[in-house]
């Protein structure tokens, strides 16, 4: 060990459930006083790798060195003792506790008085420019405040190796800027920082070095100064930036799905959607872009009748859907198909086989008391054959299938009902490249059939390549609807951060 690394991973391997290889002999080095960006697509194994450094998962192979010594990180306590702190993407906070108590959980020593604790927190906060009210309860906090608490938790423990898992996914641009300033300050103090992201501009802005993972394998480590976004993309995706997703030309039919003035209030009284208006034409794919939690979920659920809305209207070929239950909407005759984000928790029944999952949307349509499984079985066989679904059989519980196959089952069923409108939410999340392309093809196939497709996405490159137009949501508001063919990622990025479109560009 010639050079003393903060962390060095050699040949780390992790296999989930004996079948999914999330990390395959991954190597990684991190120095003190640097910010390392860990770059990779969804499902490339970034989070898995970091979870092994923070003691959440145990590696199935390979060795980890911290400060040059081989270590076994069996639990978060071990990680903490080694000075490693992780800020998880899904915050690990106790909702009913104050910021202060959340910071105190699991720390060594006696419980401090609130006054002392407040003082200590203030000290750390001012050193790094963090802002948080120590007495505020987590359930009263905004996302960025929660993140600040998470960072404070790590700093309070005196960690000098910090791991941040997609910290900017939930932040506004201003908040991101602030976070980056804080991270740079920490680096200058000599801390070692890993930031997981798949946003290239952020990588360029914040990092000193970049390590790229692809399909669970380490591909390359480069100095940020010696690379650019294009090269990084190539490393990340493995082939040229041209995603080569088809965008077939079709005849557009007006007025298939028309949403106007839609407003939705969430469970906590927050406005989740504000005056949203748009149209999806038959034979077009309308993409929806936005930072996570901008109202995408509410939009899908309002259209499909799963949540009520107080203002506005949703029209499906002249039929008003407002006030209708999901059951009534299903029975209109013109069908809306919906592939929800939570495939196993909402779109399918995870404990049932493909056959019984086929029945979900149609079982009540046959007369009589009894259920008719014969057509469902035939449909299951047909889908398995047509979409090349890998499964031991039609009765194997779908939770045992891989993510790509689960999505094929779900999307296949939804397409099977010959819908007029198809809504898909994060259709390729967690899927490998091949499965993703299979899904894109299915969406295009529907588009060519004249279906109006509303596609909620997160990868801007994909949205730009696949969709005809893209609607951008920010904090529940539409900040623009653009033509995908002559829009750049940067333009989309600006809209996502709430900078509204100029009037001229608005008409498409």
């Amino acid at each position, binding site marked *: 060990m010639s050079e003393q690394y903060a962390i060095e991973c050699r040949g780390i391997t992790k296999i989930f459930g004996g079948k999914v290889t999330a990390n395959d002999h991954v190597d990684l080095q991190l120095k003190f006083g640097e910010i390392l960006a860990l770059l990779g697509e969804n499902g490339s194994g970034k989070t898995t790798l970091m979870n092994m450094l923070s003691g*959440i998962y145990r590696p199935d192979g390979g060795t980890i060195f911290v400060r040059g010594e081989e270590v076994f990180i069996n*639990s978060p306590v071990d990680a903490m003792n080694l000075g490693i702190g992780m800020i998880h993407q899904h915050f690990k906070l*106790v909702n009913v506790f104050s910021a202060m108590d959340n910071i105190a959980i699991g720390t060594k020593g006696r419980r401090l008085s609130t006054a002392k604790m407040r003082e200590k927190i203030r000290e750390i906060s001012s050193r790094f420019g963090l802002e948080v009210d120590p007495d505020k309860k987590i359930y009263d906090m905004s996302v960025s405040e929660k993140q600040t608490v998470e960072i404070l938790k790590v700093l309070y423990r005196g960690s000098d190796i910090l791991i941040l898992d997609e910290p900017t996914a939930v932040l506004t641009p201003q908040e991101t800027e602030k976070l980056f300033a804080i991270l740079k300050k920490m680096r200058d103090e000599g801390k070692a920082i890993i930031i997981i992201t798949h946003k290239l501009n952020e990588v360029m802005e914040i990092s000193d070095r970049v390590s790229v993972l692809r399909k669970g394998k380490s591909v390359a480590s480069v100095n940020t100064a010696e690379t650019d976004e294009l090269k990084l993309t190539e490393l990340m995706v493995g082939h040229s930036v041209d995603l080569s997703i088809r965008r077939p030309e079709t005849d557009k039919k007006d007025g298939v799905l028309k949403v106007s003035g839609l407003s939705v209030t969430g469970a906590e009284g927050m406005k989740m959607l504000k005056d949203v208006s748009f149209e999806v034409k038959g034979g077009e794919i309308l993409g929806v872009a936005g930072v996570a939690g901008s109202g995408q979920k509410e939009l899908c659920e309002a259209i499909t009748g799963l949540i009520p809305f107080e203002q506005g209207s949703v029209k499906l070929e002249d039929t008003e859907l407002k006030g209708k239950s999901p059951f009534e909407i299903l029975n209109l005759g013109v069908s809306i198909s919906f592939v929800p984000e939570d495939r196993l928790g909402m779109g399918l029944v995870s404990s049932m086989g493909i056959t019984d999952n086929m029945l979900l949307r149609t079982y009540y349509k046959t007369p009589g008391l009894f259920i008719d499984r014969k057509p469902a079985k035939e449909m299951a066989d047909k889908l398995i054959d047509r979409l090349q679904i890998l499964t031991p059989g039609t009765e194997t519980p779908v939770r045992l299938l891989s993510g790509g196959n689960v999505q094929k089952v779900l999307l296949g069923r939804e397409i099977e009902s010959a819908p007029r409108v198809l809504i898909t939410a994060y259709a390729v999340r967690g899927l490998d490249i091949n499965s993703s392309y299979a899904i894109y093809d299915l969406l295009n196939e529907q588009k060519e059939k004249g279906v109006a497709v509303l596609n909620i996405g997160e990868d801007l490159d994909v949205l730009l390549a696949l969709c005809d137009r893209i609607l951008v949501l920010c904090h529940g508001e539409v900040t623009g609807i653009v033509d995908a063919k002559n829009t750049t990622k940067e333009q989309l990025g600006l809209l996502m951060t709430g900078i509204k479109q100029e009037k001229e560009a608005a008409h498409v």
Partner: protein
Amino acid sequence: MNFWVNFIVAAVVAGTPLLFGTLGEIMNERVGHLNLGVEGMMSLGAIAGFMVGYKTDNFALAMIAAFLSGAAGALVYAVVTVTFMANHTVAGLTLTIFGIGLTNVIGFHYLGMSESGTLKLPEQITQQMRSIHIEGLSDIPVIGDLLFQYNPFVYLGIVFAILLALFYNRTKAGLNVIAIGENPAAADAAGVHVTAWKYVNIVIGGGICGIGGAFTIMITNGGVWISDCVGGLGWIAVALVIFATWKPMNAIWGAFVFGAMRILKYYVNKEIIHIPDAFYDMLPFLVTAIILVVVSVRQVKDKAQPAACGTNYFREDR
């Protein structure tokens, strides 16, 4: 005046086994385990406390036995639910059936061997578990009766409750434990030994339930063994946890209020108020059912069941 003093004293005594059961269950639910085995753990404590008292004639040893036996029952539950991640409801129910069954098997076994046809605690231990008398203090009228002349269990229960409250409110470990019940993943990521603390709390909670069980034979039944001696108190204790909003100090007065309900029928003038006895027996359960509904109607975040209660935690679950 005298009537009220008698009534309150009786309510406190009747509420004491409930206090133990409630504290034990609070310790379980605070680490996220809805343990429906309270009745079973109390039964186990009852028979162990009784048998050891019967054989050794020593109150302290009997108490230790009751604690250990309740704790042993809880340990089985903990192994099954914490390590083997089984369903809490079913595991708890099984513990209750198992605990009552085992208690009766042992009880009848020794009953069969006794010559008199009854099992009764010997003289010395009966003296030790009798109400205390502190010269001077206990003789103060009213106050002495209300505060200084209970059996040792009453004071033990209150001390337990206060200690538990201090633990939750004043110590780091207590904070960690509450965090486990609310969000085990958060506690784990913060470096709390989730599994170890779950075991500790469930097992000690079971031990406290066991002492409450011993009370039912030693005090309520005057030291004579009967089958099914706990008689549903464990279930009331589960309900009382809700009444106490998972706070040990609330458990004290909650237990005494429920104790009052249990003995109400003996203190109401039946000449004036014609309500059948069955109604009084039903009262604690009826009140709890109503409280359950009221609690669910007005959802207060800080007064709800620990958020992770009833779910198992596996670190690698995403």
